[in-house]
């Protein structure tokens, strides 16, 4: 078994499952919001749009979508970094670049998560 301390769920299966489930959540969210936009056309006002996202259902759904984006993106970016930013590909610089890339990704995703929740629930 190959060990890793930076992947999301510490096991390949959990990462794989999180990526699939988060993908389904994001697809469902895109369809629901897309349906609202298509049905509303250009008639949607700010008040209607705001009220739509103020409902408890959309708040919970949007929070699930934000969490899904963060989880999905971390697993994807972690895979990219461990494919291309490695000692094998770029010598000794690989580990430094990989850790820097992963840290930067973590900061950006954490910021989106907190910011998103703040917008949705404040």
């Amino acid at each position, binding site marked *: 078994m*190959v060990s890793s301390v930076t992947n999301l769920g510490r096991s390949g299966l959990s990462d794989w499952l999180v990526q699939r489930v988060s993908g389904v959540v994001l697809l469902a969210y895109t369809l629901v919001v897309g349906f609202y936009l298509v049905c509303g056309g250009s008639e949607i006002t700010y008040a209607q749009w705001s009220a739509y996202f103020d409902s408890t259902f959309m708040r919970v759904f949007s929070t699930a979508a934000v969490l899904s984006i963060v989880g999905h993106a971390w697993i994807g970016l972690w895979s990219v970094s461990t494919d291309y930013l490695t000692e094998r590909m770029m010598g000794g610089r690989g580990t430094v670049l990989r850790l820097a890339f992963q840290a930067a990704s973590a900061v950006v995703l954490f910021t989106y998560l907190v910011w998103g929740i703040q917008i949705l629930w404040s």
Partner: protein
Amino acid sequence: MLKVSLYRYNPETDQEPYMQEVELDTGGKDLMVLDVLELLKGSDPSLAYRRSCREGVCGSDGMNINGKNGLACITPISEALKNGKGGNKLVLRPLPGLPVIRDLVIDMSLFYKQYEKIKPFLQNDTPAPAIERLQSPEEREKLDGLYECILCACCSTACPSFWWNPDRFIGPSGLLQAYRFLADSRDTATEERLSDLDDPFSVFRCHGIQNCVNVCPKGLNPTKAIGHIRNMLLSRAT
């Protein structure tokens, strides 16, 4: 005359690899690629490649033929040229992703290391029967499409995930073999085998692009076997 472009590299004399352009009179016959190499070696004995059975059984002569991995001994020139990469020229390179030892000969140590990891032998902790461990025809049938692998490495060296992580991703060939033992009714080490595979690299670096299925000279389907392993891991853990 058949135009042939050959990957040449002798670490003792060459600074770097180069493509050698040669022409060969095939007498109008649709020879196998291995026959072409044999004829070329007749005029240039320094040409290096692996070969043994010359009938697609031993898996020694896996190479990249006009952009697609395959066995030289069972690939006719006409089929190689149909790949479309190289025009009317036969372009022969070593299998990609592993270090080249010389010309078309690659160092397969990492490939075998991954094969070794999956413990490719039957493990059974129950007392040995007097004669043999029996299987029903249905149990035996589950091994079809798995046991036929000849370890030619055409699939693993066509897989980008194996190119990037040959030391951590088992690769399609090793995983096909892993499932061959997971599916075997006589093997009792299923739990240990699955535990060894449940990390982010060994199995889950497969993104299902199916290059392995596309190139397998034996027509096997490693992607399907990897899917079965995933399902076994999933049903064990949820």
